[in-house]
């Protein structure tokens, strides 16, 4: 009663395991058509400009004149340009001054928001998040009036309590503090919400078990909360790093294109913008942006390694 096995069966299996990609696409063309807008837009406005900027970084081009191939000379100029390295230093200084207090405060706020007895949690959450969706330009203008050298609100308060006023906008260090404070103000709530979500995902049973074992509050925080939050902390650190490395609007509105006194607020992105869109050195600006890519990539990698190991 054995049934003869059709000869064609093995052929068919072979054909199915090796379908040509294009025939597969053609078969599902209607589905591909539906998802195509994203890919088309990405090709035109994402991938092409990225590749073109790489090509451009080996050329000299003002937009209107001829594009001339110059090899690595844009990168050479970049590596020996003090203003660029100053902007790298500024960016890192602002990153450090903003991210450390920001993530600390975010954790504290998240912890407070997570207290079981807290009422109107939703309202607080919204309030902390609102800073993140406020127009940066408006924020920069407000901060400018707070930190003004002579007639600033903060200096007025300082003089009321007997501390002398500071020239916030004249000192290289204080300019960075002002920019960092804007970043903190804007993103502390955002990070707090993320931490809060992380805190709420930690199972209650772990805490209950710890209490039964006689652990105190500090032990619970450092032995349970922090280790379980590590992936969330890693996420915020990486996002903060990438975001801080690209700070542009804050210094641009607060200090103008020059980056303030002595370029103390000149960040990498502001430098690139000046070279590209103000001075029309498109080749050089592309080289700057690729240099930024390398720096941010390397720095994020180091960060990731450090946080993972800790």
């Amino acid at each position, binding site marked *: 009663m054995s049934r003869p096995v059709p000869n064609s069966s093995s052929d068919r299996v072979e054909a199915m395991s090796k379908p040509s990609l294009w025939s597969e696409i053609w078969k599902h063309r209607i589905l591909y058509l539906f998802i195509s807008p994203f890919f088309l837009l990405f090709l035109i406005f994402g991938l092409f400009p990225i590749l073109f900027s790489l090509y451009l970084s080996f050329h000299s081009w003002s*937009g209107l004149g001829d594009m*001339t191939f110059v090899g690595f000379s844009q990168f050479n100029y970049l590596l020996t340009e003090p203003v660029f390295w100053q902007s790298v230093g500024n960016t890192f200084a602002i990153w450090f001054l903003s991210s450390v207090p920001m993530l600390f405060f975010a954790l504290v706020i998240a912890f407070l928001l997570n207290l079981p007895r807290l009422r109107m949690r939703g309202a607080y959450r919204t309030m902390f998040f609102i800073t993140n969706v406020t127009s940066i330009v408006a924020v920069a203008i407000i901060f400018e009036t707070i930190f*003004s050298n002579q*007639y600033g609100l903060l200096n007025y308060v300082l003089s009321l309590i007997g501390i002398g006023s500071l020239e916030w906008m004249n*000192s290289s260090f204080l300019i960075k503090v002002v920019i960092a404070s804007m970043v903190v103000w804007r993103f502390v709530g955002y990070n707090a919400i993320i931490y809060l979500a992380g805190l709420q995902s930690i199972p209650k049973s772990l805490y209950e078990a710890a209490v039964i074992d006689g652990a105190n509050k500090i032990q619970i925080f450092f032995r349970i909360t922090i280790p379980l939050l590590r992936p969330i902390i890693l996420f915020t650190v990486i996002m903060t790093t990438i975001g801080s490395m690209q700070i542009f609007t804050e210094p641009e509105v607060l200090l103008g294109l*020059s980056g303030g006194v*002595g*370029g103390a607020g000149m960040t990498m992105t502001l430098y690139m913008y000046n070279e590209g869109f103000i001075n029309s050195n498109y080749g050089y600006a592309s080289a700057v942006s690729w240099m930024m890519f390398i720096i941010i990539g390397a720095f994020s990698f180091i960060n990731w390694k450090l946080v993972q190991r800790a």
Partner: protein
Amino acid sequence: MKRLNRLLLGAFCTGMLVSCANSEGAEGDTTITLWYWHRALDDQVIKDVEAEFPGVTINAQKVGGEYKTKLHTALIAGNGPDIVAMNDWASEYLQYSDKFVNLNDYGVEEIKEDYLDWKWNLAIDPETDTMIALPIDTGPTVLYYRADLFEEAGLPSEPDEVAEQINSWDAYVKAGEQMKERTGVFMFDNLQRTYLQNIEQQSDKYFTTDEEYIGDGGSVREAWDMAMKVNELQLTPRIADGERNAALNNGSIASFIGAVWEANILKDAAPDTAGEWRITAAPGGAGNNGGSFLGVLESSEEKDLAVEITKALVSTESQKEHYLGVELFPSTIETIESEDLYQPDPFFGDQVVMEVYAEAAKDVPLTYYGNLYGPLRSYFEDELTLVERGNKDPDTAWQDVQTKISRELSRQTNE
């Protein structure tokens, strides 16, 4: 299923086609596209000019945001509007004069005499003798000063006397010392302006007409030294840009040299001091800040028509309307002299300010800015700010700015 496929594909394609098909204008009507920014031209003038050309529609677009970047992009694409407004950075486009219609080929010689010669000259590429644009407005500079504070400091306070006695930078600085001694008020607002307004009064700036760099000496060095003297005597309040309005309003600043258009900014910034300000001829002579141009792009398909419309938009009659409408200070001599513009201004103690402006407008020297004026100006401003507000040593600052410039120049010639 197959039918659905066809239907969807069909819908997709028609969508694409429809979005492309609407660019044709109404039949039989010529459309001239004009790019300008808010208050670069008076809107009513554009409508009046449109009425002068029957069968022509002027599609006037107020291009917001980064106007210059957008214009630059349009020039790269070789497919832009017909007529474009350009600000004082028009001089940077002289090196790309082939992108613009050479107005010398369109008989503009006939109207040349109507305009201020120095302004006319700014739109001509010295190398190819191509004229890329016609003048819209100008920004001649004068001395704005507080008559009450001048009187308190024992200085002359009537415009004529001030112009006569404070007739040079040396006299101006000396008056500044007296001002500070007697009243404690600062004569200058900041070093950047002190330097810039001096440079603007000179015919030699950073480059010769052959694009040879001369900013390491000559009038640039003199203007720099003068600013350093002001700094040494501490005649500026060392404030950030955002605080200038407050300082003007509370009487910490006794004077500044500024362009015509700064009168309105001053009125908004310092309402509490209304009636105390006067203007007079600036020590060191007249200069110019700002002022825009109107050019026709080479890519235009209606060059003759576009040039005629451009001429009409900046004619003597139009310039008067631009001034009355949006306070664009004229570049045509006859308009500057028209009597009904000579009105007393209460903010300036009922002074007839036009008299002073008109004199200044005629005194501005012929000059050449050069392709790299923009970056070089910002290099100098950066170092001046450092000296004034960061206590940087003046000699080091001068060395640093020259080093930066020689790097910039080497990069430009390498290309």
